[in-house]
């Protein structure tokens, strides 16, 4: 029997573990990856103040802190099911079964693809895969690649790849179809990029001082898709081109790139071959909430949060007794917000474990999360706050129908 189990050792899970342990609560953390850090491990970008956010360092610091506080870790351990039984949560892994009073799901996000003919060839990978290969495993995904899908994440990762000496031939769009939809529509993509530029200094539009965001955006806007594309950190961004095919015999040898009109339709006869040895697919992120689903938690579709999210409140509680969520499972945001949510979840679980006097701290922590959100260097969805409000409204609605059904 455990007091608290945390599934996922990303920024949310690690921070929650540290918070619980600081309050004297026993914690076990389970993760299927080899080391602690989750998607924080691969992150590398320049902060507005010019210092570098080094995900490996941040992860190591948090992990060591947790170890020193006595937190126990099980790595290379995948959780395949959870269920509630006799007031306890049962956590099934391939080898062992764990029992706990408090369970935190901090399983993060997964990538959604944009499909491209030929995308099952070896050498085609999600953009996050290239990030991990490069920054965590320190092996180049290839010598020269193309990134399909232009969004905040792919732009940041393109920069990281270039930093490591990997050549990016271009960032470009997938061909428009019923799945790629917005991601294949140059106007919609431009729109979403412009949204990003409204935010506080973002690494997407400020790298060094050469390309100030206004300059970059002016070029994008005024010349409306120049034929040669626009360069960002010397990487061509092609909003008026799309990959129609990835080709190669047994692995990637190149992509077919075509010119598209402003509506995203291919201009026939414009196809050219671009030789590359790897291709990244960047279709965005969605909350990885499968364990909340098998537990029977109610879900809501909130586009601003990246997809279906399990119902939860600001204290990171779900409607299921003893089950908590934190980090990207609740909506797609950067690592700092995930960590802030982790603190709140840790405090809430400590509170439920009987630690007294935490109410004010919990409220402060909720405020802290909001502040972190407002000053976040990376925002994946411009309307994130709208999304957060929606889920809280759903929580209220759910609680009041529950009260009503108790009355009758």
């Amino acid at each position: 029997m455990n007091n608290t189990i945390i599934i996922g050792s990303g920024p949310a899970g690690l921070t929650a573990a540290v918070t619980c342990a600081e309050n004297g609560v026993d914690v076990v953390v389970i993760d299927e990856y080899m080391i602690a850090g989750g998607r924080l491990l691969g992150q590398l970008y320049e902060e507005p103040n010019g210092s570098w956010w080094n995900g490996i360092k941040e992860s190591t610091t948090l992990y060591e802190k947790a170890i020193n506080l006595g937190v126990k870790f099980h790595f290379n351990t995948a959780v395949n099911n959870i269920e509630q039984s006799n007031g306890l949560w049962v956590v099934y892994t391939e080898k062992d079964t764990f029992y706990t009073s408090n369970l935190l799901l901090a399983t993060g996000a997964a990538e959604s693809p944009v499909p491209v003919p030929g995308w099952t060839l070896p050498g085609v990978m999600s953009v996050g895969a290239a990030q991990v290969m490069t920054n965590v495993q320190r092996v180049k995904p290839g010598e020269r690649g193309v990134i399909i899908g232009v969004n905040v994440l792919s732009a940041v990762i393109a920069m990281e790849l270039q930093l490591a000496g990997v050549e990016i031939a271009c960032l470009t769009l997938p061909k428009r179809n019923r799945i790629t939809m917005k991601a294949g529509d140059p106007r919609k993509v431009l729109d979403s990029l412009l949204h990003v530029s409204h935010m506080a200094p973002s690494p997407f539009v400020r790298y060094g001082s050469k390309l100030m965001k206004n300059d970059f955006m002016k070029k994008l806007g005024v010349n409306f898709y120049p034929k040669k594309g626009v360069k960002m950190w010397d990487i061509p961004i092609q909003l008026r081109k799309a990959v129609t095919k990835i080709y190669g015999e047994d692995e990637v040898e190149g992509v077919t790139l075509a010119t598209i009109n402003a509506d995203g339709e291919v201009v026939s006869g414009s196809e050219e071959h671009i030789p590359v040895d790897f291709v990244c697919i960047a279709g965005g992120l969605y909350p990885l909430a499968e364990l909340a689903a098998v537990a029977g938690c109610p879900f809501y579709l909130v586009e601003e949060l990246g997809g279906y999210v399990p119902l939860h409140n600001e204290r990171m509680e779900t409607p299921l007794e003893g089950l908590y969520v934190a980090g990207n499972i609740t909506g797609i945001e950067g690592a700092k917000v995930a960590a802030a949510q982790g603190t709140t979840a840790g405090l809430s679980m400590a509170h439920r474990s009987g630690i007294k006097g935490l109410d004010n701290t919990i409220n402060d922590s909720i405020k802290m999360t909001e502040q972190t959100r407002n000053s976040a260097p990376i925002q994946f969805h411009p309307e994130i706050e709208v999304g957060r409000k929606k889920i809280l409204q759903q929580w209220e609605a759910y609680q009041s129908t529950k009260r009503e059904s108790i009355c009758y």
Partner: protein
Amino acid sequence: MTRRILDHPILGKIEDKNYVSFTFNHKVYKGLENESLAAALLANGIRTLRHHEESGSPRGFYCNIGHCYECRVSVDGQQGIRACLTPLKEGMIAESSGQLQTSSKEDGGLENE
């Protein structure tokens, strides 16, 4: 072939001393201890990790973080192991062949909506 990023302008240098030997499809390779098996293979220029069970189309790692199961190989006799999550050890024997048995289909185990 050297595809490793030994020196990185921000992340700094990595030690490349602890090389171990491992086998993939009966050939011996070298990789760094505790790097992922997928990374070790890529550093040796190997992208194809398996072939699709029905069509036989070649597959490599796709997500690199355990989600897609495209990188599954057998490791030391155990099948269905994700190469992207497996730390490399001295003497490890990996193979891309081998059909995987699961509890999935017969009882609808993986039927998800």
